[in-house]
């Protein structure tokens, strides 16, 4: 908490209400943890940084915005001109952009309203939400003057109704990619995005492809007291959070409003995204050479959990605390500018994409499906190798009768489990996920190598036919990160310099400490005595010394985890890097393994991935044996993921392989005969054939002796059955594919072996028919009704 600073005592009337920036109210607890004042004190206020707000326009002549308004950072995509002024109407529907803009860059000390987080930054507006939003409109908006605009702040997205799954279209995806590759003269545009507001609809922001894109900085909110706001929706792509409003008795957020007014009615994650845009502007002022990835690294390193309440705070394998509600925690502007000012650009981004896995496994209601893949982090390809992780993306293709019943998680080789999707009770869609990309930042800093497990749980929330099963058809893993340690040449957070003068005080203490110590020694000190009362002051030790000699050495009775006691030398020595406890330095002397690794009983070493016929038991941190018939299993001995020779996988069980013409009956646990039309099958029915018996042809999902009317017999592909293919539309019988119709449906005539509608056009003049003929429209299915008959009759 910081007391009110006389240097920043502004005359703006709402300044005293800006509790999230300074503590002026002596009677209430302070909430200055975002340390914005600290960044200002160091001289960073957003000078020369350009921010734009993608929204419903901004009121450019608002007294708080006019001094910082930048027409070069503005455009009206809806009106196709350069003036982003909102459309005024009776209901004031277009207030949003102006409110967001004030958060970022409202001018300070002008007696009008508030003070923006980056009150000297340039601010512009892109008016694009007041009209039909299309892929084109979004792409155009995100690509306006990318070499001039540094930060694009967007506080909108697909519906947060808990049933929508939507994201950027092809043009917008390209716009993001262009932005990060070429924007800011190659440093990359910074796209800040408000994570969703669908908390009450039990929405999950992984279903919003904008906020879960690796190119956007996804921002969530917390209430004044660190609680979850009513609108907050969790997900694994949230990077950081700011204060916003979300509880009845909370203090409010103030900002600029339409008609040159001020408001305290602004809420939701739309408060948070512009605050972070402002804080990033401060960091860019401290170091204009930060790349788009540097900015994300800075947020990961400096955001803190503090008093933000969540059940799911966890420490990942890189010792970073992260939650699905708040990402890495509350942003810290002062830490951002300090880190930014001495930042060294992180190594280039490597992308390690894994082959698509096609488990084609059914997801049984009430059960969990696991699918694992082992990653080498592309260690054999120098330009793709990922050792230290940043974003992790999982693309999933699955079918399911009720999408909202699914829960998806990913577990990293370090043992970090990130929930990629929570259940969405309102999502009754039967569309499944068609190569939808889930993104997680929860593995940031961890190592990429090892086993990754995707877990899909189906928990029916409403009455539904549980015999209709979901099917995980494909999934793939894409790891983003670096081959080198991105912080190798960096100082740590603890190195952030304190207030001036603190260092001098330390030096003074050291100088004063030169006098000889004559008091009692610590009980761990040996016979040589000590030069102070603590265990760090011992000259030698009774049991073990820990740490580097002559610098940070201390005496201990037992060596801590990761060390073993060398009795002869009276020293704690480091175990091998994979061990938690050990008897000696070698890899084979581990007695227990560090988190994320398992003790391999075959080699007595700690491994990321257990050998065949073993699985990693999380509790015991050991590789335990799978059931006899399993070649690989996951989490339990009877949860098989691959089977030994002579067995095949049915769900998570290995069952004996049945001979041709039979299938394995799970209830009776025996091989049973297929239908006579099948050579191989999955069940007894005639629609459950995999391959047809000799002399049968495959038609749709059945095996038939002859093709039905409306079908023709086609040649099989290698190793497949002969197939019956459907004739062209409106054709009753045909001799082959395409224009090979023999007889048409009623209402259609056979013209050039295709069926065209029996109607004549009266507007098909000679020129028109020439165009139809020269473009060969009548051969194209889509245009077959396009006056073809009339034109052909006309010659």
């Amino acid at each position, binding site marked *: 908490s910081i007391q009110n600073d006389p240097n920043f005592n502004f005359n703006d009337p709402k300044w005293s209400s800006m509790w999230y920036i300074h503590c002026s109210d002596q009677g209430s607890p302070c909430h200055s943890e975002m340390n914005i004042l600290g960044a200002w004190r160091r001289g960073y206020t957003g000078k020369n940084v350009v921010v734009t707000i993608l929204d419903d326009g901004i009121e450019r002549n608002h007294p708080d915005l006019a001094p910082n308004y930048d027409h070069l950072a503005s455009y009206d995509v809806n009106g196709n001109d350069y003036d982003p002024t909102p459309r005024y109407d009776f209901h004031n529907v277009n207030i949003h952009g102006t409110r967001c803009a004030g958060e970022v860059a409202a001018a300070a000390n002008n007696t009008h309203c508030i003070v923006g987080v980056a009150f000297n930054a340039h601010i512009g507006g892109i008016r694009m939400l007041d009209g039909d939003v299309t892929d084109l409109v979004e*792409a155009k908006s995100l690509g306006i003057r990318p070499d001039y605009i540094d930060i694009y702040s967007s506080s909108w997205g697909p519906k947060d109704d808990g049933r929508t799954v939507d994201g950027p279209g092809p043009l917008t995806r390209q716009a993001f990619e262009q932005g990060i590759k070429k924007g800011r003269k190659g440093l990359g545009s910074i796209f800040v995005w408000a994570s969703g507001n669908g908390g009450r609809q039990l929405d999950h922001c992984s279903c919003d492809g904008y906020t879960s894109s690796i190119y956007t900085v996804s921002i969530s909110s917390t209430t004044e007291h660190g609680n979850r706001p009513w609108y907050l929706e969790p997900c694994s792509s949230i990077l950081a959070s700011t204060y916003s409003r979300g509880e009845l008795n909370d203090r409010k957020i103030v900002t600029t409003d339409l008609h040159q007014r001020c408001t305290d009615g602004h809420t939701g994650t739309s408060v948070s995204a512009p605050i972070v845009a402002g804080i990033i502007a401060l960091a860019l002022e401290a170091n204009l050479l930060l790349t788009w990835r540097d900015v994300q690294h800075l947020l990961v390193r400096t955001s803190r959990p503090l008093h933000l309440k969540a059940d799911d705070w966890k420490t990942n394998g890189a010792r970073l605390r992260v939650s699905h509600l708040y990402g890495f925690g509350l942003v810290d502007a002062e830490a951002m500018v300090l880190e930014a000012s001495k930042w060294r650009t992180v190594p280039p981004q490597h992308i390690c994409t894994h082959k698509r896995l096609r488990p084609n496994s059914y997801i049984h209601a009430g059960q969990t499906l696991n699918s694992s893949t082992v990653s080498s982090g592309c260690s054999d390809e120098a330009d793709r190798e990922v050792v230290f992780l940043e974003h992790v993306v999982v693309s999933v293709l699955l079918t399911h009768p009720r999408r909202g019943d699914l829960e998806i998680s990913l577990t990293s080789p370090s043992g970090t489990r990130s929930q990629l999707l929570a259940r969405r009770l309102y999502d009754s869609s039967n569309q499944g996920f068609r190569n939808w990309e889930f993104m997680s930042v929860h593995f940031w800093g961890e190592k990429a190598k090892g086993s990754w497990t995707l877990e899909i749980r189906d928990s029916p929330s409403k009455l539904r036919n549980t015999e209709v099963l979901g099917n995980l058809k494909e999934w793939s893993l894409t790891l983003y990160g670096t081959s080198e340690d991105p912080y190798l040449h960096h100082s740590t957070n603890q190195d952030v310099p304190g207030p001036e003068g603190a260092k001098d005080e330390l030096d003074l203490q050291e100088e004063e400490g030169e006098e000889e110590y004559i008091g009692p020694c610590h009980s761990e000190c040996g016979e040589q005595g000590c030069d102070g009362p603590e265990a760090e002051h011992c000259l030698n030790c009774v049991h073990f010394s820990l740490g580097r000699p002559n610098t940070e050495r201390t005496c201990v009775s037992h060596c801590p985890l990761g060390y073993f006691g060398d009795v002869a030398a009276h020293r704690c020595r480091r175990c091998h890097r994979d061990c938690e406890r050990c008897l000696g330095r070698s890899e084979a002397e581990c007695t227990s393994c560090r988190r994320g690794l398992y003790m391999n009983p075959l080699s007595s070493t700690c491994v990321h991935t257990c050998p065949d016929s073993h699985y990693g038991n999380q509790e015991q941190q050991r590789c335990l044996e799978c059931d006899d018939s399993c070649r690989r299993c996951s989490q339990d001995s009877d949860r098989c993921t691959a089977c030994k020779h002579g067995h095949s996988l049915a769900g998570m069980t290995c069952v004996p392989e049945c001979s041709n013409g039979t299938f394995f009956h799970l209830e009776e646990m025996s091989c049973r005969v297929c239908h006579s039309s099948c050579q191989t099958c999955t069940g007894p029915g005639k629609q459950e054939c995999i391959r047809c018996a000799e002399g049968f042809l495959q038609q749709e999902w059945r095996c038939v002796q002859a093709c039905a009317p409306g079908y023709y017999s086609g040649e099989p592909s290698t190793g497949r059955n002969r197939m019956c293919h459907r004739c062209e539309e409106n054709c009753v019988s045909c001799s082959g594919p395409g224009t090979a119709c023999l007889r048409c449906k009623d209402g259609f005539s056979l013209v050039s072996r295709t069926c065209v509608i029996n109607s004549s056009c009266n507007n098909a003049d000679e020129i028109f028919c020439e165009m139809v003929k020269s473009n060969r429209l009548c051969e194209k299915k889509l245009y077959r009704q396009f006056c073809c008959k009339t034109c052909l009759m006309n010659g």
Partner: protein
Amino acid sequence: HCRRDVLTNHWAVRVPGGPLQADRVAQKYGYRNLGRIGSLEDYYHFHHSRVVRRAAFVFRGTHSFIHMDPQVQWAQQQKVKIREKR
């Protein structure tokens, strides 16, 4: 909760060869070229004033021939995306 696509009278069109070439293609089929789409190279924003502004069905007419023009690498009639302020 099925929702029908709503088609607009705006097209995204990929025409290599620069803005003059894009203008020529637009004019040929009755469109107005509203300029490049952000910083995407060769992608242009075309508008057709004689097509219904918002429609549930594709309207066919001579403007549809743009999809077959050899100068046009890609063209897409734009659909409305529901976007909400947060």
